[in-house]
């Protein structure tokens, strides 16, 4: 390897690029999914009730008058209260930005559950923002104004992973949400909740509550929090699209490595046969081959981690961070796959006939 640096360097570079793409896309997938549905995942309602026309889309759901009372009357329901969601133009940090408001009834289900600093809202015009957006004018004490010239919301708390649709989020009380909606559309005849956030009565499971609500109330679709997260529009298609792309990448990395070592084995056939003829055991040659595979994969993984760490800086808006453990696991998986595909080259080495070194008839692998 020392004497053929270009050859092995090129392979390590190609493997590094491929592993980098795997790491980057895995980070992107995790970041995108978390940024799409963080607020839904980290609110206190264990069950969410949507309009059955919404197709699990919170933005497309409206709770019609009379539904809340019917849900509250279901025997296994502990507490049920309206949850509003909508995207607004706001001024934050001196700039106009998109922001999603989650309006919930204070003290009831729907509050953010990952508060890391400050407190929850205690009245109108107070909000909890996402930790990721602190620097953009959403830190504690900052004032965010709904446009045009609408309510001013003071950030009183910061929570982790509560973004939604890849936008900043503010959890506010329901009247503040209503006021913001009326600013955006003075023609609004009624401000309806997007969903109902529910906590089960003691002793009842969320899935039992879901079944009871769906059986008792017409025109709604109750979902456990996890079902709501998994069924959110975009999440399943993003997951399935990335899964196929990642699968192809996981196939290509070992193929490239296997191809390289197979060719190298062909090229070195004469030398390897000679080594066998002078007494080198096949196991030593196989070991040498596998050591080269491991060295290349480790070098590729190090290159990939460097590229990954650099690329993550470019997508920090997705809230993704450089994480060592996933990178190590991915590198190990790819190493194992590369070792498996290198077995073809190993098989060739094992099939070398030492006698052919003495016949002058050429070496056949």
């Amino acid at each position, binding site marked *: 390897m020392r004497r053929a640096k270009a*050859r092995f360097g*090129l392979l390590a*570079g*190609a493997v590094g*690029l*491929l592993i*980098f*793409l795997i790491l*980057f896309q895995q980070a*992107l997938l995790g970041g995108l999914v978390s940024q799409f549905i963080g607020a839904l995942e980290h609110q206190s309602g264990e069950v969410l009730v949507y*309009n059955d*026309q*919404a*197709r699990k*889309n919170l*933005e*497309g759901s*409206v709770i*019609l008058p009379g539904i809340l009372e019917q849900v509250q009357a279901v025997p296994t329901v502990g507490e049920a209260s309206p949850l509003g969601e*909508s*995207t607004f*133009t706001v001024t934050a940090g001196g700039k*106009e*930005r*998109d922001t999603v408001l989650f309006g919930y009834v204070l003290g009831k289900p729907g509050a953010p559950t990952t508060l890391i600093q400050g407190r929850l809202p205690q009245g109108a015009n107070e909000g909890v923002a996402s930790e990721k957006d602190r620097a953009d004018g959403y830190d504690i004490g900052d004032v965010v104004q709904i*446009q*045009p010239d609408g309510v001013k919301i003071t950030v009183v708390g910061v929570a982790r992973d509560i973004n939604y*649709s*890849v936008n900043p989020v503010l959890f506010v009380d329901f009247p503040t949400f209503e006021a913001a*909606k009326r600013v*955006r*559309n003075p*023609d*609004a*005849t*009624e*401000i*309806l909740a997007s969903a109902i956030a529910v906590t089960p009565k003691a002793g009842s499971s969320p899935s039992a509550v879901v079944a009871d609500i769906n059986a008792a109330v017409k*025109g709604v679709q109750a979902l456990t929090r996890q079902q709501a997260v998994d069924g959110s529009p975009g999440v*399943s*298609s993003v997951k*399935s*699209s990335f899964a*196929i*792309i990642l699968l*192809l*990448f996981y*196939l*290509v990395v070992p*193929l*490239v490595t*296997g*191809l*390289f070592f*197979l*060719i*190298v084995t*062909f*090229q070195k056939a004469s030398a390897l046969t000679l080594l066998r003829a002078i007494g080198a055991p096949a196991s030593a040659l196989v070991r040498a081959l596998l050591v080269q595979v491991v060295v290349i994969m480790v070098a590729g993984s190090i290159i990939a981690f460097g590229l990954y760490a650099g690329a993550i800086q470019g*997508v920090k808006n997705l809230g993704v961070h450089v994480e060592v453990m996933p990178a190590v696991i991915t590198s190990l998986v790819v190493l194992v796959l590369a070792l498996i595909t290198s077995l073809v080259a190993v098989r060739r080495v094992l099939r070398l006939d030492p006698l052919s070194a003495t016949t002058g008839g050429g070496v056949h692998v």
Partner: protein
Amino acid sequence: MKLPLRELRRQPNRFVVAVVVLSFLATLLLFLGGLLDGLYLGSTGAIRAQQGDAIVYSASARDSFLRSRITGDVRTTVEHVEGVTEVGGLGFTLLGAKVPGTSDLADVAVAGYEIPPKGVPAPQADGKGVADDRLQDFGAKVGDTILVGPSASPIVITGFVHDTGYLLQSTVWVNLSTWRAVQNANRPDAAVHDDVVQALVVKGAGDLPKAIDAATAGATKTLTNDQAVLSLPGVKQQRDTFNQIIYTTMAVVLAVVGLFFSLLTLERLGLYGVLKAIGASSRRLFMGVLVQALVIAIIAFVIGSVLASIAAALLPASVPLQLVPSRFVSTFIGLVLAAAFGSAVSLRRVTRVDPASAIGTGS
């Protein structure tokens, strides 16, 4: 040129693994590109089809149709701007729709319009509309009455148009009064008065965005059609991210081709020495390497195209994969260029081969 092609024909096994790897990479490139195209075309069709020269939003909407609100007096101001020849209202409502004979709901965007987008007929009578043809995937037919939204507002489908999707939903094109009725019945918090629309499609000449925004004293933000397409949520970010992945994958193709042919060249150094000794030039030998790289890239592209097409046919509708001819062309060009540049890695070794080595050890 005969020698490299003959080698490809007589010793195909030598090239099989490179073809397999490149075929996978070609499939990957087409798949990535197909996803990007599917997301882009499915999200932006309704805006790309607009026949105006500019689209006017309310200033505080941040280029979002759903947040924009243009009142009658703003419209009147826009109509009187110099250079403006025609103004039409536009509005979108995203809802679920029940198609007769099916149990699953379809996602639709009910769009109210005045200036017909490309392929869409003039606005029809109240309660009637033409739908984007992706609604046919949900079983909709001409003459069906679909029921949209929680209020089950009826719309009779009178025809289908192609490539007018909005945010991956099937657009149902209706007149403005039908759109307002649907919006007010199903989205009371986004209800609109009779003279209110979400945006204006404007035809005219000159610097319309500047003239319109100046005339409305900053109450509007006017974009060209291309700008409006890119301002749709997620479109620009998706395009940038996928393009970065595609370019990096192309770099891998380049590295793989470079790796393969540098190894192959190393293997053939003795042969090149002999060929040079009998008069073959470095240029001729390198052209042989280049031809082999191009042939491999072309074969890999064909296999990759077949695999990607099969994948597109087998994947569920939730994966927005759309393979368009231009993507095949760009992938082909990318692969061929990567193969050409990748094979150039061998150029130095080919030119350094000493013909005298053929007389000596032959290696």
